[in-house]
């Protein structure tokens, strides 16, 4: 219980500290570290999600029309709802947790264990400025970009590939998509993915900088905790956000009294 409270307090402090220090991104080494993070978390992850994202879109349309006998209207509506509101941001967050969250927590824990964070302090370099701020900002941006990319691929995959496996033309699907699309879905997913990125990076940085013991044995423990808690945070943010914005929770099972 005490440990959990300590982690929550540490996480909140770290988040506030990072938010206050965002202007430090202008410093050259911090900016360089930020760009590296964006490249690692966003650009190098992009190729790995192409097939999965396309398959996701095709599956949604195919399952709706072929197996559940939905008409094109309903299928496209569900595609938009799922891809923009739920699965797009969640899929990007999962990729970011698995690729970047593990890397950040392990790297930071190794730096802490091997005394490199201490060396940075003695060189007069603030750990938040140099290690935490660029990673948090980089992961936020990369998660938002990756979310948009996954959504684009899923929708494109659904529109282009679905006509080969179900009885619906590309033109029909596209026309319905543009009619049903609402910009709020896009804003919603961008803000949500920025929050996901912030939570994942802040959680992984906090665990990386606070390993349970300063030996190499502490590193795998840090990674496990960081990944587990990042995933829980993402799910919690997802639920709270859905409740706050749309007044529903768990796909409508819980409704807000607005």
């Amino acid at each position: 219980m005490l440990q959990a409270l300590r982690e929550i307090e540490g996480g909140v402090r770290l988040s506030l500290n990072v938010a206050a220090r965002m202007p430090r991104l202008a410093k050259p080494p911090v900016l360089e570290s930020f760009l590296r993070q964006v490249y690692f978390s966003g650009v190098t992850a992009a190729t790995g999600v192409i097939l999965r994202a396309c398959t996701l879109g095709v599956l949604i349309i195919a399952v709706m029309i072929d197996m559940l006998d939905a008409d094109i209207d309903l299928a496209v509506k569900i595609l938009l709802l799922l891809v923009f509101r739920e699965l797009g941001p969640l899929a990007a967050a999962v990729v970011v947790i698995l690729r970047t969250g593990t890397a950040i927590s392990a790297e930071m824990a190794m730096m802490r264990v091997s005394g490199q964070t201490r060396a940075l302090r003695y060189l007069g370099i603030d750990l938040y400025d140099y290690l935490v701020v660029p990673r948090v900002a980089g992961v936020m941006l990369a998660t938002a970009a990756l979310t948009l990319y996954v959504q684009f691929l899923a929708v494109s995959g659904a529109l282009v590939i679905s006509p080969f496996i179900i009885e619906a033309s590309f033109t029909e699907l596209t026309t319905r998509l543009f009619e049903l699309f609402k910009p709020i879905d896009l804003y919603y997913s961008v803000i949500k993915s920025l929050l996901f990125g912030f939570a994942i990076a802040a959680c992984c940085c906090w665990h990386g900088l606070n390993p349970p013991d300063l030996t190499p044995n502490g590193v795998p423990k840090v990674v496990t905790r960081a990944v587990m808690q990042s995933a829980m945070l993402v799910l919690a943010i997802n639920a709270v956000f859905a409740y706050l914005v749309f007044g529903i929770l768990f796909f409508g099972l819980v409704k807000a009294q607005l």
Partner: protein
Amino acid sequence: MTELAMRYARNSAGHEIRLDVPRGAATRVHLPDHDAKAHLVTAVLKARGEADEELELFGEPTSALRARKREQLRARVGALSPVVGLIGNLNAWENISLPAAYHGSPPLPEVARLAHEVLEGFGLAPRAFFAKLPDQLGPLERKVTALARLLVAPPELAVMDALEEGLTHAECACVGRFEAEYRARRPDGTLLYVDTLEDA
């Protein structure tokens, strides 16, 4: 009376250490063990001693300093020590230039000129050397990188911690030139060589 750059005392675990380091000189100290050495180096770099330590830097007792004053003292000391090792995921150039790039001075072209001078002084080809990560460098090369980083803003008091540790005989001869490199950039600076009785 000789002006002191540093005065240090520690009384712990049966060891009594008392150290007066005159300003502008090079002083060699053999400490009883690695723990005592790590305590000394850490106290100097933090400009703050533990409960069983007394530390004066440039005539200022460090026990009850304000944070700002302590920061100012910290900026006047530096160390070539495993305590201030290289950053593993940065290459040699990034390691050398990181403090200057972060603090905004001296300008990076000046850092590059100085790094070239230091590396060439030790017979190393800067262009290939800069791209290497610390893990790809030998023990002497790592120490030269750390020296170049230290000399970017040469401190008034430089602690040289176990300089010859892990080096061959030939490499130890090279390390002997570190003082000349430091003096060339800080003629009035103070050098403190520390190692343990076991190493000695």
